[in-house]
């Protein structure tokens, strides 16, 4: 008997169907991967299973019994725990308090918190999870996102769930943390916990899942054993197009060197970074989380200060001290954290997309509103941002469309010579990814120098003319397209390459 069976689930919001017909069943102790583009219905399905929303119709069976999950508390009572992509930790509280929120052990007639016990429980959970080094007494705000994600998952684990739902859990994790998570998932599955694993990363799905369900347009279009499926089949089911059509054709750059960085160092983050990008070139930069990639980009962009080293733009010194100066100098940077520092979520598409290009639609500080709107409107339709229109707050857009607004913001700036893309497709559906890849290729074709930072291997391999690999703040390898192999890149990035020589 399946542990969890979902039959013909249907849900609409204000008449817009989000889930049309999803059915699947999963046996106890199995890891079921759910994949699909944004808008395929994954989030809605997850909300239904965790009690955040009720389906319009359809049936959920737990161990053969119909389950009514009307509130999050119902889901918890049934042993269903969900780890959402958006972190829900309270930054000013300790790890232990976050993990045990709402269920802190007490003594003296439930009046006094039993801190030693709370810390012991939290430490135990973290140790079982493979992170004995996390001190349950430290405050969440002192942690980076990766550690926060670990605590978030630990918070679900402490309840010893029967069904664990994980939404893109590895998006911010490093390779070793991901390995620890996968080990834990396998251990949980062996002990009989059913795991629903949502991810964009197909390599991961093939590594961890037993079965897979592909969702498209609110329907479950494919279910099968992972061993019997090819990556190609999954992608085709998700997007309806073959893998080969994802990346535009690679072009050989012809131009002069535009950006040149020598001996750039920021103590504690990276040292002695040398790189050159020519006009029309896409320079890929791969590295695990914490390897210093983003910091290099931020320093080049003037958002953080370097300790030493030289940046040259078209041969002239260009150590920018502020992003404002960098933008004037012809740089653009799409940051990795769209919600944190890429967008002002509460503001309209117009205000966000027009944020970097005031000077194109204003004189003496006064904005030509009509011109600005026309400018942004044009870009919105050019990039086919959905829904069209510029007045809507970007908060209401899907992840892929939000990312297009960020891209539009920088495309609206004139005279940009260098584009830095930092994780341009994080949390973006495959259809939008393809569009963003095309934009990157078009920029390069127009003579712009592109620095493409990403932890998605297929992306850097598919787009770059050359690839730099960073590890622990240093560039450890530079590869040409003939050396683009997943194993090679990963070996360098993880420091496992047999001939892993330090370049400098």
């Amino acid at each position, binding site marked *: 008997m399946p542990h969890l069976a979902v039959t013909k689930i249907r849900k609409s*919001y*204000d*008449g*817009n169907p*989000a889930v049309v017909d999803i059915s699947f069943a999963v046996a106890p102790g199995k890891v079921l991967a759910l994949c699909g583009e*944004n*808008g*395929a*219905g*994954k*989030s*809605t399905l997850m909300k239904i299973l965790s009690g955040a929303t009720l389906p319009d119709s359809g049936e959920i069976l737990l161990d053969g019994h119909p389950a009514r999950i009307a509130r999050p508390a119902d889901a918890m009572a049934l042993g269903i725990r969900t780890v959402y*992509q958006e972190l829900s930790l309270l930054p000013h509280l300790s790890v232990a308090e976050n993990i045990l929120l709402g269920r802190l052990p007490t003594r003296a007639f439930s009046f006094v918190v039993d801190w030693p016990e709370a810390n012991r429980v939290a430490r135990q959970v973290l140790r079982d999870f493979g992170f004995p080094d996390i001190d349950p007494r430290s405050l969440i705000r002192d942690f980076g996102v990766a550690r926060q994600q670990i605590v978030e998952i630990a918070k679900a684990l402490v309840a010893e769930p029967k069904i664990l739902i994980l*939404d*893109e859990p590895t998006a911010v994790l490093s390779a070793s943390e991901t390995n620890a998570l996968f080990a834990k998932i396998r251990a949980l599955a062996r002990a009989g916990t059913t795991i629903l694993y949502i991810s964009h990363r197909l390599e991961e799905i093939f590594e961890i899942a037993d079965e897979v369900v592909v969702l498209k347009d609110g329907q479950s279009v494919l279910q099968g054993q992972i061993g019997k499926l090819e990556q190609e089949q999954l992608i085709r089911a998700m997007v309806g197009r073959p893998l080969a059509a994802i990346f535009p054709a690679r072009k050989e750059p012809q131009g002069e060197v535009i950006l040149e960085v020598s001996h750039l160092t920021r103590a504690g983050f990276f040292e002695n970074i040398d790189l050159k990008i020519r006009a029309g070139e896409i320079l890929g930069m791969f590295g695990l989380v914490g390897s210093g990639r983003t910091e290099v980009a931020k320093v080049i*962009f003037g*958002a953080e200060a370097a300790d030493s080293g030289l940046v040259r733009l078209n041969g002239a010194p260009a150590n920018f001290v*502020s*992003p*404002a100066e*960098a*933008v*004037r100098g012809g740089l653009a*940077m799409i*940051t990795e954290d769209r919600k*944190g*520092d*890429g*967008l*002002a*979520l*509460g*503001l309209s598409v117009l*205000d*966000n997309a*027009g*944020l*970097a290009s*005031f*000077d194109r639609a*204003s004189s003496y*500080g*006064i*904005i030509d*509103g009509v011109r600005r709107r026309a400018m942004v409107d044009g870009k919105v339709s050019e990039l086919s941002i959905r*829904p069209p229109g510029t*007045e809507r707050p970007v*908060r*209401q*857009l*899907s*992840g892929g469309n939000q990312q297009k607004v960020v891209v539009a*913001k920088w495309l609206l*700036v004139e005279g940009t010579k260098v584009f830095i893309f930092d994780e341009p497709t994080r*949390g973006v559906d495959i259809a939008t990814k393809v569009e963003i890849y095309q934009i990157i290729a078009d920029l390069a074709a127009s003579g712009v120098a592109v620095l493409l930072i990403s932890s998605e291997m297929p992306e850097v391999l598919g787009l770059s003319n050359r690839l730099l690999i960073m590890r622990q703040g240093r560039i450890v390898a530079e590869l040409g397209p003939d050396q683009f192999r997943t194993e090679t890149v990963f070996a360098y990035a993880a420091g496992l390459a047999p001939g892993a020589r330090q370049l400098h």
Partner: protein
Amino acid sequence: MTEILRTSPKKSSFWQGLSRADLIFALAIVVLVAFASIASDAFLTQRNIVNVSRQLVTNGFLSLGMLMVVRTGGIDLSVGSVLAFAGLLATGLQEQMHFSAAIAIALTMGAAVGGINGWLITRFNLQPFIVTLSTMGMLRGGLYIYAETPRYPVDEMFRSMLGGAFVGPVPMNFILFALSVPAVWFYLNLTVSGRAAFALGVNKEAVRLAGVNVGKHLIFAYVACGLFAAIAGVLLASRLGIAQPSVGVGYELDAIAAVVIGGGLLGGGGGTAIGVLGGVLALAVVDNVLNLFNVDSYYQQLLKGLIILVAVLARRKNA
């Protein structure tokens, strides 16, 4: 990941800017005015209307200034002290110089205090509440050191040109306020600085990384707020014919109230010049009506507090 897009019913662009709460408030003011004009013979007299329009100018300028700062996600508690100091300078310095020069010094002082507030906030990344609380205290102390007793204007023109002047039946100072509403609207909506300030009230880092000089626009908002508070102080001293060192204590709260009633969001991301005008009018009319009915001032305070609460509740986003 996926967010469900709700299709909003098509509205014309004018009405899109107004929420239902705005309309309810406009209606409430109309009802209040109608009620007051029926219940009190004094309310709709020219004398009373002139009085109200002159009185609301003080809070009007303070609130418009406050709005510019609130849109950046900040707050300025020092406006009451700036108002008092500006009044003292504009009147006290008249013994040494022409009153127009005295006014210029007073306004410069207001802008400078705003500039210092803004600079401290951006340069050292401090909280606006704390910085302006501190300048509020320092300035109040400073102005008592400057003038322990009230100052009276020397030049008769000071009163007859500003606080005592009329254009037809309309008080001069009210005209100045009425003109500054579209000016502030213009700044907020059609200037680079205004749009940038609005955006940084929602996400400062995103604005910085878009290559915008965050400090410049933030400081500008505080300078404008200080300047507006100084204008309010000069006009008040001119209208009353006296500058008291004790004036303006707690005025910042009335200004914040007007901004909030008008739809401003403390913490950034909302508020319009028209909304603030509505908030200022509402508070002034309520004050006036209660005065006409000789309601005890304790009840007035109670009622004002209640209005703020109702306003915030009415504008609460449906969570």
